[in-house]
């Protein structure tokens, strides 16, 4: 029996990625990283800034996301996100820009705890990528 399932990553502009031979996906869920294998129970969760790792027959792909929702059902995983970047195509200068923006955001004085937490997460993740 194959251990593969289907994922679809959709951003508002288009269907970003469609893969049918995924063996494992690791997503930065809000309450911690979460690995999903085939036949996982149906789940809905949302994402915090972090790295999505997709393991498939054709190799490993990594993506940086800032937010999103993940739904897993009947071995179909859909991931809705408005900000996703392929790490392979991500240039250093772009990374720096993102980092600067995130730091600015987290240093704002009037900011709710939750957005502060998210901004800090962003900074941490981006720093680790550098």
């Amino acid at each position, binding site marked *: 029996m194959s251990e593969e399932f289907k994922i679809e990553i*959709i951003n*508002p*502009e288009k269907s970003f990625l469609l893969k049918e031979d995924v063996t494992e996906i690791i997503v930065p869920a*809000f309450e911690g990283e979460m690995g999903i294998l085939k036949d996982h129970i*149906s*789940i*809905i969760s949302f994402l915090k800034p972090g790295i999505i790792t997709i393991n498939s027959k054709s190799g490993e792909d990594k993506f940086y996301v800032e937010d999103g*929702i993940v739904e897993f059902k009947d071995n179909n995983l859909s991931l*809705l996100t408005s900000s996703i970047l392929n790490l392979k195509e991500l240039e250093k200068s772009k990374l720096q820009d993102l980092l600067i923006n995130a730091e600015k955001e987290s240093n704002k004085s009037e900011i709710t705890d939750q957005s502060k937490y998210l901004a800090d997460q962003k900074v941490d993740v981006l720093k680790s990528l550098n």
Partner: protein
Amino acid sequence: MASLDDLKKRIASVKSTQKITKAMKMVAAAKLRRAQESAEKGRPYSEKMNNIILNLSSGISDKENAPKLLSGSGNDKVHLCVVMTSDRGLCGGFNSNIIKKAKSYFAKLAEDGKELKIITVGSKGNDQLKRVYGDKIIANISFKESKNANYFDADKVGKMVIEKFGAEEFDVCTIFYNQFKNVITQIPQAQQIIPLNVENLEEDKSEDSYEFEPDEDEILNNLLPKNISTQIFKAMLENSASEQGSRMSAMDNATRNAGEMVDKLTIEYNRSRQAAITKELIEIISGAESL
């Protein structure tokens, strides 16, 4: 009857107008393809979003404490209408169709004694509405700088709506836009986004129990604001495809009309030229005869 010179000038001017409308039609056709593509590509996102929200809201146990964006503020007094139009004219009935739809809705609200607030997106709608509803318009947003509809802009509108809802400035929010069906048909739509009209969403009969992490309420609270932006973005995409489609058919008509007019004017020109020649000939002949 106009003189030969006048006719000549008119023919030249109609011809140059025709050239412009023809060029605009070509441009609109090229843009339409892109806009239509992105409208179609954007659909899965909003559909998925709707599905997830439907699954969530049907699973929610405590209806009373459901997030306000879903259940409404409990009142039905102040209506916010987001009227989405284009920034450019010369696109046939595109803008006036939306405005007509919106105005009839406003009239109904006034009849029911509801309070009305308007946000206009796109300068054309603002121009048309401010004469009658000037005092009701609380904001006007225009995205003249951005070339294509993008999610960032939609998010700005969405955040503004949510902020105003949070400040209890309105109870019900409806967006107006043109849904793109095909090049000649665009259907003006009024879609209520706050409170979310769950009954309108397609019924997903599957009895799935999801595991939620964190719990339903928190996910809903996170998801609903995103859904607002998504719906607005969807409306923007549909709108931009509709705008180009509408412009294309309007310009096609204009080009054809200009062509007809050129034909008519040319016939008139030829006739009067011929008449002038005949007149001169008669004059010469009668002059020769009298000698």
